Structure formats: structure tokens, C-alpha cells
């Protein structure tokens, strides 16, 4: 992946992000933020790779810290978002008891 391709990819991702988010109703803005939190939790994949390529105690410790923080981010983001979205119901559906 050359640097230039990355730059263009980033540009398209910015536009895609704006388009996707503009369509989300204000009703769902809290779950949306929680979901985007979950999505940047993809950093967990980078942290995993960093840990397995680390050399030396300090590098391993740093990567390990990154992996702990990233897994907390990704799991928490998912659980909270799913919990919130489960509660949104239209009027004809009866809430479960």
C-alpha cells in the first residue's frame, strides 16, 4: 500500500463517514456514538499484531497495555450499544416482560 493510495483511501473514508452519519436520525445519536466507539475498537487488531512482533520487555509491556485498553474498548462498545438498541421499539410491539 503506497502512501498516496492511503491518502486517497482516507479521503473516500471521510466522505463515506459523513454520508453514513448524516443519515442517522437524532433519535439514535447516543447508540451511534457508542457504535462508532466500538468501530474504532478495531485498534484491538493492531494491538494484537504489535504484541506478537514486540521485542524486549518494555515493548512487550507497552503492547500488552494497548491490548488490554483496546479489548476493553471493543467489548464495552459492543455491549453498551447492543443494550441500548435492544430497547428501541415501535408502538405496535409489546415490550417483553
Amino acid at each position, binding site marked *: 500500500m503506497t502512501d498516496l493510495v*492511503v491518502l486517497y*483511501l*482516507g479521503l473516500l*473514508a*471521510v466522505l*463515506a*463517514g*459523513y454520508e*453514513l452519519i448524516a*443519515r*442517522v436520525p*437524532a*433519535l*439514535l*445519536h447516543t*447508540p*451511534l*456514538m*457508542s457504535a*462508532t*466507539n*466500538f*468501530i*474504532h*475498537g*478495531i*485498534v*484491538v*487488531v*493492531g494491538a*494484537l*499484531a504489535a*504484541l*506478537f512482533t*514486540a521485542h524486549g520487555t*518494555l*515493548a512487550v509491556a507497552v*503492547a*500488552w*497495555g*494497548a*491490548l*488490554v*485498553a*483496546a479489548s*476493553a*474498548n471493543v*467489548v*464495552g462498545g*459492543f*455491549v*453498551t450499544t*447492543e443494550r*441500548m*438498541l435492544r*430497547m*428501541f421499539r*415501535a*408502538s405496535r*410491539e409489546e415490550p417483553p416482560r
Partner: protein
Amino acid sequence: MSVGDALLAGADFLAALLLLVGLKAMSHPRTARRGILAAGVGMLLALLANLLLDALGRGSLRLVFLAFAALLLGGGLSAALSRRVPMTAMPQMVALFNGLGGAAAALLVFGRVLAGGSPAPLALALAVFAAPVGSASFGGSLVAVAKLQDWRLPAGRLPAHRTLTALLIAVSFALFALALLARAPELRAAAGGFALAVGFLAGVALTVPIGGADMPVVIAFYNGLTGLAVGFDGVLLHSPAMVVAGVVVGASGTMLTQLMARAMNRSLAAVLFRGFGPPAAASGPAEREPLATDPADAAIVLAYAREVVIVPGYGMAVAQAQHKLQDLARLLEKRGVRVLFAIHPVAGRMPGHMNVLLAEAGVPYDRLLDLEEANAALAVAGAVLVVGANDVVNPDARNNPASPLYGMPVLEVTRAPRVLVIKRGRGRGFSGVENPLFTAENVRLVYGDAADVLGRILGALREL
């Protein structure tokens, strides 16, 4: 490219696709839950593929053990916390997980610094940005968590606070650039570590003076910053999936920051650097005294309207009155009254928070109206019930150029013939701005704690 590498690339691609599809499904509450499940599958796919096809093959047993320990520790603690936390505390959770993502992004780049070697120029420039920003997002988000939890922090500003904050940010960038360019491993490690610490302090310094009322903007802002940091990390680590996911989140955070700031009539710069201005003498002395009424009369007004619009504010959430409010809506609907809820974008403590609180209480989402829909409904409503909202229903925002709220989009409750306001005390809102709504002709105040007053209205309705 070996078979393993090709499979890994394919899994990453599929994961990025599923994350975007999941985000797209958030455009409607009916599909949103399926969306987050799809995104969850994508994330799991990426994690498993990287673990099985890449990481496990090259790591020693000790690293494998460490990796699983980290995943279980971080994931386990956070799952336990997220499953228990009440919906009123969701803003804190979002801020916390966002901060952790920022920390992870910063530590990743630091790990790269420790590994030595100099990345390509673009990756280098992005890394100089990503590490301090991720760290600042961590520090700032932790302060936001503390403020949202109402933990007491030493508020206020140091002398020359803005200059100091700007200096911390600059030092953090400079130190990290040094860390990336230096040759000696010791210097790289020391400069990188200090850069992250200074970045953390910059985030703290930036957030401490910001008031609780501005937290919706702050959370959205740090959400965007963490996203960008993750996206830039992706460039450094050659992971297109991280680039796409991170940058999309960066764009979303930026957009929500703007939306929130606009809904509060402030610019991001004003939120970050200025604090709320002194309360201006807005409407002049009130021409008349506010008129009060009691819950029994309020019940009659609501029961005989054809359509009632309820405007909940943060005061309602503080009083935990959302379930009582839903009971009231159900009871009125049984009598044939149509009940709708008008939700201002900044009602609650983060964008859209009020909708979550009401959905939890069982209010169907088709009864929750956003600002525009609500103002249309208010024009035809028979009665309005305002519960613990103040600034978002202030008519001065439309009518009085001298008011600090002037220009802020508000819910125009006085369009309805009768307006009832449940209000805790005789004071002003968070912003300390005078509210002429309370003395308007068709407005009656019911004083008391929201839950308590709603309970009495419910009692009176049952006896009608």
C-alpha cells in the same frame, strides 16, 4: 502472497465491509440492532483471523499467554461493567471506552517507536499526530467521565490556562517527533514516553475548565479524535481496515461535534476555550409574576386535551422520572389522548441521551420527535407538559437578540394553547439565563420534584 496472507487480507476486508454495513443500518431504529450485530460479527472475524493466521504462528508460548490474558482482562472487566451500568450513566461509559481506545492508539504508535527504524514520511507525519492525540483523548475522556459522574474536581482555570494548554500540546508533538527521528533507543523510549504523558496532561488541562453542560460537545469531540488516531495508526501499521474504520469514526465524531455545538448555540472553540459567558441581563425584569397551579388542575388540563406533547429535560432524568412519565403517557392514551415526546438535541448529557432513557422506560420510538417534528406537533397540540427542561424551551432564543441564547434552536412550546411546566424551584437553568416562558400568559407552573409531581398528577388522573 502466501495462502495465509491472502486469507487474512480477505478477512480484514470482510470485517471492514461489515463494520460499514452495520453503521449504515443505524439509519433506522428497526434495523439498527441488526447493524450492530453485523458489525460485531465483522470485528470477531478480524480478531480471530489475525489471531489464528498471523499472531499465533509467530509468537512464543509466553506471548500467546500474555495475549489471552490481556483480551480476557480488558474484555472481561469491561463486559461486566457495561452490562450493569444504568442507562443514565451511558455518557460516562461512552467517554470511558472512547478514552481507552485513544490510549490503545497512542500506545501502539509508541510500540512502533520502540521497535526502531524510521517510517515513510506520510506515516511519520501521521504518527506524530496520532500518539499525542490518542493520549490527550484518553486524559480528556477520563476527566469527562469524572465530571459526568459528578466527582468533584478542582474546577476553574490556572493563570494563562489557554497558553499553558497550547504549550503542552506543542511540547507533546515535538517530543514525539523527536522520539520517531532519534537514533538511540534510550532517547526514543524516553522522549516517546514523555510525549504520551504530556499529551495526557494536555487532554486533562483542556477538559477540566469545561462545564458539565458542555459535555455532549466534549464527548463527541474526543470520539472524533480517537477515531482519527486509530485511522492514522492504520497507515503506520499497514492496515487498511483500521484506516477505513478509524477515519469513518473521525468523520462521524466531527459531524456530531458540530451538530451538538450548533444545538447549543456555541462554537467548538467557545466550548473548549471560553467557558460560558457571564449571564447577561436578558429580558429585563419580568412584567408579571409566574402563575402556579397544582397537580390536580394539571391532570384536568392533560386529560381533556386531544393531543399532549411532553418536553423532558435533564431535570426529569435527575429525578429518575422517566418511568412515571411513561405511566402518565399510557394512562392518557387509555383516555384517548394522543401523547408525543419532544426531544431537543441536547436534552440529557450527550447527543440523543433522552431518547435512550425514554426507550428504556418503554416509550415507543415513533412517539419520540426530533426538534423539527416536535415544533410542527407543538403547533397543533392541545397542551404541553415541560418536565425539568429550561433553556431548550426559552422563547428568548427566538425573540430577544440581547439574550445569550439568541439563535439557539428551541422547542416552541408556547405555540400550544396551554403549557404546564414542572419545575423544581424558582431558580434559573444551567446557563443562569432568565426564562420569560415562565411568565407567559398561557403557562402555568407546577412546583416540585419531577417524580413527586408526576406521581400526584397520575393519582389525580386515576380519580377523574
